[in-house]
């Protein structure tokens, strides 16, 4: 005979047991549905966790890339004690000048202020502008944010307080559609400004708003025309030549600013310096918290699912005693009974895993819509869920299955 025959015979029994298991699960639909739901909830939370953690990591890398490894970001006030009500406007033009002139390695210094709650309009199109940023020449370069069209500010634009702006991707699209905004005059509030450059699409969203939804004005124009304090600014970007020595660069920047602000030993900094490293640290701390919180939740959900499974299987074994006894009387070996019950458990948990993943992805989509998380389907999640499900099925199904296999056929039949 052919060589395939022994293989076919080896597979015959598992195949038959699989079919018996499916028949039994179908016969006890309600119970099966309970198990599937119990497992699905656990797997759904697992899916969300893994996807969320992955998403957070991707986002962190994106932010760090955007931030630039060669750049420091200085904020007025110590952001760790901002809640205390310490003033945040501490950075001055003198500071910016001092850094530019006497900090070795720093080659670009861009001070920034921002104003929110303005409106933009062009012809009949109008939109709310979440943020207008005031900056000096080099904004695009210092943020590693290339212009797709037009040019950056010149030093002259800044000293003159010229009525020009760079436009972000979102307002450019909203006001001009596919047409080029460069050279057009738009109104920021009641101030007419000419668009001289368009920033590329960045697509980074943080806390609801899109980073692309902004325009950039010369800082002088912003402070003069919108009545902001002219002496101070909120933040500074400093770009260094050698990103390998960021620690030394940051130390130099800090002591210079302390000197400029006449802080003596023992005084706290009245500014904060952020670097890509620091942001990464903060994000991984946040991620760690996320993992622990969601991990505990998922673990609880999965254990609960497992116990639901174990319980319903014990119920199943006692309810199907006569069926088990009969099968043994008709010549089923203990192993066949054990296997059938294990296959039932694993099938249910697998089904639960698939449903749970679908549920998790759907919930993830919802969270993504709300801008809370970014979730992508990943094979890692898929295989983790499947592995978790099989493990749960085997772990919690084994005891009841063994109990079923060990039943004495006479006792089991008599118990009817």
């Amino acid at each position, binding site marked *: 005979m052919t060589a395939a025959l022994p293989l076919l015979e080896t597979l015959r029994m598992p195949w038959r047991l699989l079919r018996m298991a499916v028949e*039994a699960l179908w016969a006890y639909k309600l119970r099966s549905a309970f198990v599937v739901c119990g497992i699905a909830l656990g797997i759904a939370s697992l899916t969300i966790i893994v996807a969320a953690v992955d998403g957070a990591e991707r986002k962190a890398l994106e932010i760090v890339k955007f931030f630039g490894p060669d750049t420091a970001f200085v904020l007025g006030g110590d952001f760790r004690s901002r809640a205390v009500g310490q003033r945040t406007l501490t950075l001055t033009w003198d500071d910016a000048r001092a850094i530019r002139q006497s900090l070795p390695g720093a080659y670009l210094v861009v001070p920034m202020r921002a104003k929110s709650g303005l409106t933009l309009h062009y012809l009949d199109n109008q939109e709310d502008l979440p943020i207008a940023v005031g900056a000096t020449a080099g904004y695009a370069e210092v943020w590693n944010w290339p212009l797709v069209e037009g040019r950056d500010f010149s030093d002259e634009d800044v000293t003159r307080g010229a009525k020009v702006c760079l436009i972000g991707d979102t307002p450019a699209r909203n006001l001009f559609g596919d047409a080029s905004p460069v050279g057009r005059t738009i109104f920021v509030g009641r101030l007419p400004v000419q668009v001289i450059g368009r920033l590329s699409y960045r697509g980074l969203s943080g806390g609801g708003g899109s980073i692309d939804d902004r325009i950039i004005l010369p800082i002088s124009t912003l402070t003069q025309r919108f009545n902001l304090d002219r002496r101070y600014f909120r933040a500074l970007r400093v770009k260094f030549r050698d990103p390998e020595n960021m620690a030394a660069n940051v130390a130099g920047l800090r002591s210079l600013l302390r000197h400029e602000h006449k802080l003596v030993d023992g005084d706290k900094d009245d500014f904060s310096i952020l670097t890509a490293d620091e942001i990464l640290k903060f994000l991984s701390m946040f991620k760690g918290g996320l993992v622990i919180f969601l991990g505990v939740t998922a673990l609880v959900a999965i254990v609960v699912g497992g116990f639901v499974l174990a319980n319903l299987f014990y119920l199943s074994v006692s309810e199907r005693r006569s069926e088990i006894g009969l*099968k043994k*009387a*008709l*010549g*089923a*070996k203990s*192993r066949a009974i054990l296997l059938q019950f294990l296959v039932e458990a694993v099938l249910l948990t697998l089904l639960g895993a698939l449903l749970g993943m679908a549920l998790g992805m759907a919930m993830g989509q919802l969270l993504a819509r709300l801008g809370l998380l970014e979730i992508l389907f990943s094979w890692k999640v898929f295989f983790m869920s499947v592995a978790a499900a099989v493990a749960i099925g085997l772990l919690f199904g084994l005891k009841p299955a063994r109990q079923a296999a060990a039943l004495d056929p006479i006792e089991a039949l008599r118990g009817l």
Partner: protein
Amino acid sequence: MSADSPLIALEGIVRNYKQGDQEIAVLRGISLTIDPGEFVALQGPSGSGKSTLLHILGLLDRPSAGRYRLQGEDVADLPDDRLSELRNRDLGFLFQSFYLVPYVSALENVILPGLYGPTPGRQLRQRAEDLLVKVGLGDRLNFKPNQLSGGQQQRVALARALVNDPRLLLADEPTGQLDSATSIEILELLDTIHAEGRTIILVTHDDETAARAKRRIVLHDGRITAS
């Protein structure tokens, strides 16, 4: 095995149960032989040990002492899996309350013992269909047990007992839950099966039923009192 050697040979079979500290003897030394093709009725009042004897004969239970040779093979000390194989291949069972799997069709019920044996699926299905036709249920193949009457259910069980073509059929009060007309139908089917050359052992406490058998063994208090 030669034609004239017995199918079943019991020698001094004893079966004790422990109940608390006490040992209760249910079978107190049973010796008997049954030849191939016999139709034997096992009779006796309840508590006489006839069901226990049938369980031992059916390899569902093991004797506490004594020798049991089935087709010349000493089966007393065989491992459980081997006993399962023997039950599956050589024995057919008929129970008082039918014991059909409630959630599958008549046909699937008949196929069931075959699923634990080596017969390929298509052949098995064909055999099961033929048997259901033979017991008069050719038009009820896909009925679930709860759609069948008691007599029909027992006929499904009978077809199931025959699906692996066993040499020996063991029936434990097969008509105990049936009315007399239906009982006669079942007993007539047993006659047909016997006529095909199969050995039948039938447990009953009913004289009329026992009268169909060619040989009666009467049990009393764990001993054979008439054979």
